[in-house]
């Protein structure tokens, strides 16, 4: 909740200071959010339906402007920049890939963003090719994107955003509707992007993904950030999670149940639990 003291301004890519937002309909979706995101972080934003995650994310690239407080992107007031300008820095992947796809081929689709930000031909092509390679889409680069399966369509939509080579990538529920294998593949690719230095902001309802991938968790409830900690710490307070309409992944729940027999509560993955239990046997 409080900006972390070690957040030195060089590394700070996004800074929300007491950001508030009220929709025209009168819904107060953000009630004063303060949040610092550093370069290279893998941040998960979680919270119940209607807690304001999407609203928060839309502030990061200027699709929504705060009605109170400030949003700074790379140290610059977001309100002084157009969405098109911010899009070079903050890529936003919408939940529904079908809301983005319209071109004849995957390659055209991926080139759309870079062309919009006024790059020249060869550079557009370089970026599009790179994005297609990163998302493993080379085989289908000439297929019409709308006829692909959901998993592939989602990858195309992500490719079309990372082709603009943003420093921050915001993903709004990227795995909904995907089966386990597609989701795993997607998450592996996102992991790789993060390893290469892209800051990831992942909005999701799946705690398993959060536990396995994120290194920091922000829990939202009713338009406020109620918890901001590293992933391990986030899952130790079951009461708070429950009040935010969330459940930790089954493994962590199991670990909480097993805590009487000495299992530590901050288990995130099955491997850790196995390790913890076998260690218990040794003793």
């Amino acid at each position, binding site marked *: 909740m409080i900006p972390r003291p070690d957040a030195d301004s060089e590394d700070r890519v996004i800074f929300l200071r007491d950001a508030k937002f009220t929709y025209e309909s009168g819904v107060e979706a953000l009630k004063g959010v303060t949040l610092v995101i550093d370069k290279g972080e893998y941040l998960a934003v979680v919270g119940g339906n209607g807690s304001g995650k999407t609203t928060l994310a839309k502030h990061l690239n200027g699709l929504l402007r705060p009605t109170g407080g400030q949003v700074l992107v790379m140290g610059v007031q977001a309100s002084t920049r157009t969405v098109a300008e911010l899009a070079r820095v903050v890529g936003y992947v919408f939940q529904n890939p079908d809301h983005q*796809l*319209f071109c*004849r081929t995957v390659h055209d689709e991926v080139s759309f963003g870079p062309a919009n930000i006024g790059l020249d031909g060869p550079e557009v092509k370089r970026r599009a090719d790179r994005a297609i390679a990163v998302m493993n889409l080379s085989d289908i680069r000439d297929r*019409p*994107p*709308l*006829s*692909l*399966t959901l998993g592939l369509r989602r990858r195309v939509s992500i490719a079309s955003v990372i082709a603009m080579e943003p420093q921050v990538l915001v993903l709004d529920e990227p795995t909904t509707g995907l*089966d*386990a*294998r*597609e989701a795993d593949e997607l998450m592996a690719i996102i992991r790789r992007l993060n390893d290469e230095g892209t800051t990831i902001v992942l909005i999701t309802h799946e705690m398993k993904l959060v536990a396995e991938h994120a290194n920091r968790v922000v829990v939202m409830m009713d338009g406020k950030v109620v918890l901001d900690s590293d992933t391990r710490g986030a899952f130790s307070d079951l009461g708070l999670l429950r009040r935010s309409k969330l459940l930790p992944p*089954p493994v962590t729940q199991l670990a909480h149940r097993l805590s009487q027999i000495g299992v530590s509560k901050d288990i995130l993955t099955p491997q850790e639990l196995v390790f913890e239990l076998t260690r218990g046997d040794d003793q």
Partner: protein
Amino acid sequence: MVFRSEFVVLMPCSTAPQVRFNVYPCHVVSVGVAEDEQRDVVKEKPRILSGGDSKFVSPRTVALYGVLTALTAAITYMTVIPFPPTRGYFNLGEAMVFFSAFTFGWRAGAICGGVGSAAADLLAGFGMFAPTTLVAKGAEGLVAGTIGRMKGGKPWAYALGIICGGACMITTYFLSEWLLLDFGLGAAIAEIPTNIAQVTIGGAVGTLLSHYVKQSMPSLGR
């Protein structure tokens, strides 16, 4: 096989193994999906069902017409590019009229164009124009759909369709505003340039849309 009171879950095979830990006593059926499975989209050309024991048009047609009509209205309403003269708005609704006509034929063009645009007028509060719009845009869709799809939709046919359809629309509005609604010659003439711009741009965008959408959804066919 499904038994009475059974709880059956259909899911892709790769997710199925996780479900075994589920608390519900259920019967999991894993279904494999071909990698490059094409999505099922509106395949049939809309047509009036002949024969059968139903005197209604097919459900596909009802759904298609309903949705196209809603689209026309929503796009008319949402894509307003401010422009001063009489009706006070320049919009891309025209593009949807031409799109429906070129993609699905004159019947869709007439119904969706006419009703959709009239509905937009009603909802936006220009109800007074709704009857005129119904006739004007309906005629536009009908004419554009008939001419534009001649000879399998050659470029000149589209162009001719846009010109004739647009002429019908502009004339209808002009006559109605001049003689029926009695705005006076001045106001009726003042709207003609907006309408011409709207037809030109709407026609171009509508043709592009028809082209793009047919390409993205090959199953739409001709």
